[in-house]
């Protein structure tokens, strides 16, 4: 123990101990304190970019804090998935007020959309943009696709038609066709319930069920249409319209031709 006692009495002992103590405290703090990792910096940056874009393009209707105005609903709690759906299908930003916002050309990059989505997600918790495994119909069995058809007919066909061709609704609204819709946007619409569409939560309609529905739609839309022209998949209305125009019109022309006297040797 003499060795330690000698060290303690050494002239440099006090400054050395002080430096050691400072080092321990400093290192300890750096371990315990919340760290600003590079990923987090990126995320903050994304949210800031999103906010800038939001202030510029969305806030005139949805309010500077996304709280909603008389022009547009509150976005607090709608979640990133709603933003990805609305902007990713070109429905938002809206050109003007309409009975229903149509799907249009998308003028924003996916990075910009994700930035706005990340910012809106900070306003209140809501459905997130899904991972591909949640909606990709890859690897579904025939049985699962058939169940997807049953689920689609029970839950979706009332509005979207029996194979997703879309349908009319009251007061100028409509359920859009799902033929061209991306799987991710179908998933997001199911979870967020855009406009008049009801929501289908994860607990009642698990990802597995949504995947099956998407698998059924893909399968149904890949089938060659042996019946010829679909006339907009709108059912008996459009078919009856064409039958009337072409059928009755054709019959009238033929009847006129039969009764016409034709060229005469006058």
């Amino acid at each position: 123990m003499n060795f330690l006692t000698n060290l303690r009495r050494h002239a440099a002992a006090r400054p050395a101990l002080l430096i050691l103590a400072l080092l321990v405290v400093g290192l300890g703090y750096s371990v315990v304190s919340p760290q600003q990792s590079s990923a987090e910096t990126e995320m903050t940056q994304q949210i800031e970019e999103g906010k800038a874009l939001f202030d510029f393009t969305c806030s005139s209707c949805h309010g500077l804090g996304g709280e909603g105005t008389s022009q547009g609903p509150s976005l607090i709690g709608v979640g990133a998935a709603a933003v990805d759906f609305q902007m990713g299908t070109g429905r938002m930003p809206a050109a003007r007020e309409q009975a229903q916002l149509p799907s249009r050309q998308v003028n924003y990059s996916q990075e910009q959309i994700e930035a706005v989505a990340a910012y809106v997600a900070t306003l209140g918790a809501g459905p997130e943009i899904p991972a591909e495994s949640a909606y990709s119909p890859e690897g579904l069995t025939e049985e699962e696709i058939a169940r997807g058809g049953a689920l689609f007919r029970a839950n979706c066909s009332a509005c979207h038609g029996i194979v997703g061709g879309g349908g009319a609704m009251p007061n100028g609204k409509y359920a859009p066709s799902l033929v061209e819709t991306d799987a991710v946007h179908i998933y997001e619409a199911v979870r967020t319930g855009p406009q008049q569409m009801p929501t289908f939560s994860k607990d009642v309609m698990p990802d597995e069920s949504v995947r099956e529905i998407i698998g059924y739609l893909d399968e149904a839309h890949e089938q060659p249409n042996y019946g010829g022209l679909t006339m907009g998949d709108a059912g008996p209305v459009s078919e009856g319209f064409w039958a009337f125009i072409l059928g009755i019109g054709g019959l009238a022309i033929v009847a006129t031709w039969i009764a016409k006297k034709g060229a005469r040797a006058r």
Partner: protein
Amino acid sequence: MSHDNLPVKDPDLGHSVPDPGLEPHVERYTDVDKGAGNRAYAAILMMLAAVPVLAIAFVVIYFAVPRNAYIDFGLLKANAQNVGFGLTGGLAAVLIGVAVIQWARVLMSDEESVELRHAASSTDDDRAAVMGLWDDGVEQSSVRRRKLLLGALGGAVGISLVPAVVLLADMGPHPTKRLREETLERTIWAEGILLLNDENWLPIRPEMLEVGQLVNAQPANLRYLHGVEAHQAKAKAAIIVVRMDPNSIKVPESRKDWHVSGILAYSKICTHVGCPISLWERQTHHLLCPCHQSTFDLGNSGVVVFGPAARALPQLPITVNADGYLVAQSDFTVPVGPSYFERDSSQDFKDGDQ
């Protein structure tokens, strides 16, 4: 050509319009020009001659073209056989029709003729002759002397219809009041029956539903049934469950225990002609039937706001069981689905009831 049309007299105008008669007959080119006639003749023969060729082509296509081959026209894909059948068979039928019409138009006689109207009844002579024949028949059949013959024949024919009437009447169960109460007027919903999401059969807890959510649900006991029984039960028991903000809906006093914090269950069967409906607008709370556009307000006990339906959509009283799952409190309180003659509509909910 003479006929009896008199000149038309118009007393107001003070003049009469003479009967213009038939317009003068002008011959067709094909009648005056031998070449034109022969050309028309040849054209008709050509059309008819093409028909056998097309018919043979039809048969060749039937055997030669694979059944699952299809032609891609870009916008539409069509089965190659169907396209071939349509082009050959359709064209053959059209050619026969065109050839026959053209024959009538350019080759058949072109003389106009007039056929005058006359009374629809036969002449008195003809009618007297027919009545004479009838009387002779009656006399010769000896029914005047042996009067029972006609009665016996009528009775025999009449009674022979009875088996047919019995068979027809027995084609289904008689819709007596008791049978209606056991079938038409009840569903398999009962106290404590779980609400299951249709097709993936998940039980539902209130916290699983967000405001604006729609669930197409079925009773859990439907799963014990199979075949026809299951279909009949499902056709009546199908429900839709919706969650709305309790502050945004009208709940009458008599139904304040029928919902679970804004979660309401209604029959999915339209009260007009029984189409299944689930076209629900989350913002207006309106449920639209796609068949005839009947619209029900699910935020107001399912009353009709538009369309041909005459009665509110029946609401199913629901509650939460001890495990926290949604269950029915009872069966529907009124018969679901479309009307029928004997239906008592006094129990149905009317707008403004409490």
